[in-house]
């Protein structure tokens, strides 16, 4: 039977079977298109996620717990250390709104301190600089006033300790605000007001002075001056002209701990 004859004889069946096959194929494609593609996409996504899970190096929950534990300990340590390092000014050297303007409080504190210290130093034959390390031009901004008053608090304590130690001469005192206060980067976590003392005289009172600044006991004069004072730098050596004496340059620090936000990425 030739093709023409086959077609003539089976045309209807061929058309039905062909149409059915086409419908089947379309249905099969539709299933693949609507469900199969979704399934393949989900399988691919699952594989990709699985691959990421197994290939990427990540901290585990145990690691996180360990780090959280370390974080708690560090926070506790920082709190403890901050409490020990941060300067705790006495009431005379803090600014209180009800006591008047900051400038008036500053002048009052300076006058009272200067009078008391010079009177005590005169009695003990201790030479103390007239300016107590304060700037010639009084500060006008509240922030600066507060910092100079804290520096003055440290000067007051150190001079009282020097009196107790029997020191002979305080040649120079300098209060220097943290130079980073004016920088764009800021002072960081710790702001340091540095107070530098230059003392001279017999070595043993100078050694006693250094040791006294590191004791927590209050001064014997009832002023409430307590240590320890933070030492940033110290140098003690005999001056060339007087080999039996010693010169001491020591820089104390008034520290302010500033709350710091974690760096943003």
């Amino acid at each position, binding site marked *: 039977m030739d093709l023409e004859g086959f077609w*003539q*004889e089976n*045309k209807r069946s061929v058309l039905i*079977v062909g149409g*059915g096959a086409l419908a*089947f194929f379309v*249905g*099969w494609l539709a*299933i693949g298109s609507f*469900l*199969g593609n*979704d*399934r393949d996409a*989900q*399988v691919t*996504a*699952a594989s990709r*996620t*699985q691959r*990421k*899970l197994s290939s990427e190096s*990540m*901290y*585990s929950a145990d690691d*996180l717990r360990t*780090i959280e534990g*370390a*974080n*708690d*300990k*560090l*926070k*506790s*340590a*920082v709190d*403890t*250390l*901050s409490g*020990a*390092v941060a300067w705790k000014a006495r009431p005379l050297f803090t600014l209180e709104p009800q006591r008047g303007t900051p400038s008036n409080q500053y002048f009052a504190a300076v006058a009272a301190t200067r009078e008391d210290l010079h009177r005590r130093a005169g009695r003990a034959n201790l030479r103390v600089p007239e300016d107590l390390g304060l700037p010639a031009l009084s500060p006008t901004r509240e922030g600066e006033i507060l910092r100079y008053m804290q520096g003055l608090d440290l000067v007051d304590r150190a001079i009282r300790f020097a009196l107790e130690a029997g020191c002979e001469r305080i040649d120079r005192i300098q209060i220097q605000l943290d130079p980073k206060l004016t920088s764009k980067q800021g002072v960081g976590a*710790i702001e340091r007001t540095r107070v530098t003392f230059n003392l001279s005289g017999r070595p043993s009172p100078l050694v006693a002075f*250094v*040791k006294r600044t*590191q004791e927590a006991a209050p001064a014997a004069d009832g002023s409430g001056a307590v240590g*320890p*004072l*933070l*030492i*940033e*730098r*110290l*140098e*003690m*050596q*005999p001056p060339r002209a007087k080999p039996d004496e010693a010169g001491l340059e020591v820089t104390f*620090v008034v520290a302010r*701990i500033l709350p*710091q936000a*974690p*760096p943003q990425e």
Partner: protein
Amino acid sequence: MLFSKSQVKITGLKLDRVLLCGGGAALKGLPRYLSSGMSVPVELFDPFRVVDTTKLSPEARDELEEQKLGAVVALGLAATASDPAAYSIEILPATLRKKREFVGGTAWLIAAGVLALGFLGYEAWRTKQQLDDARVKATALEQQYKKAAGTHRRAEELAAENVRLAKLADELHASKGSGEQVARTLDWLAKDLPAEFWVTQLTSDFRSDPDLGIARGQEKPVVSVVGKAKEGTNSLPQLYESFLHKLRAQLPEGVVPKEKLTPNGARFTLDLSIFAPPAAPPAESPDGAASKSAAPSSSSAQAAGPRKGG
């Protein structure tokens, strides 16, 4: 024509030529009439062109020749009976014909269609199941990944914060302990420095010192002592070594001072920092004893206060 098409079941049957047979075919002029009406050649059918009649008697052959148009039906029936491949014409009741058609073709087509639909349904169900499974798995994995990534991100943030806190704690610790270190050093010198020696210079500063294990950028308070000895004193190295021994015993574990005594013993220098990282544990000698100058390995800062909490 229609009858022929329905009988042979070929609706598109083409007509090339018409052969007339039967007794009526002998009507005069009929072929020409039909040819002009049907537009195809019409001829009388001579069945004996394909039938061998030589074995018939001459009388029978003559008689057959006279009745050849009328003998076509009988001859056709005889030929059909002897040839299985020949066309056959059936005359059936309509119900029986439909039934046969159904059983012979339509039923199979329906069965095939049902099977195909069933297969497609099964395929759809199976693919849907696979899709649901894959979706559940993908969702679970995605959630697992998100959770892991969240844990990782939180851990990284905390780790970064820990680094910052550790640095701050170190800084605070060093600030707090710098003065205490000076005071302790003064005590040690007053208590243990032999009378033959005296101190000519004492400094304390935040600085780096690779010899003490303090790297650049991580400056720590270091106390430096410079001293001299009385000239003409015997056994200066031994006295100095004795002082060092006492000093080391009072230092926190792991703190190794950097010291130097001039060969004649007249001058010494001593640098130390209790904030320096603890020294590495000593390498053991072949006989198992640690080297003489090595120090223990635990943290030096533990004695003075908390260091990195992590």
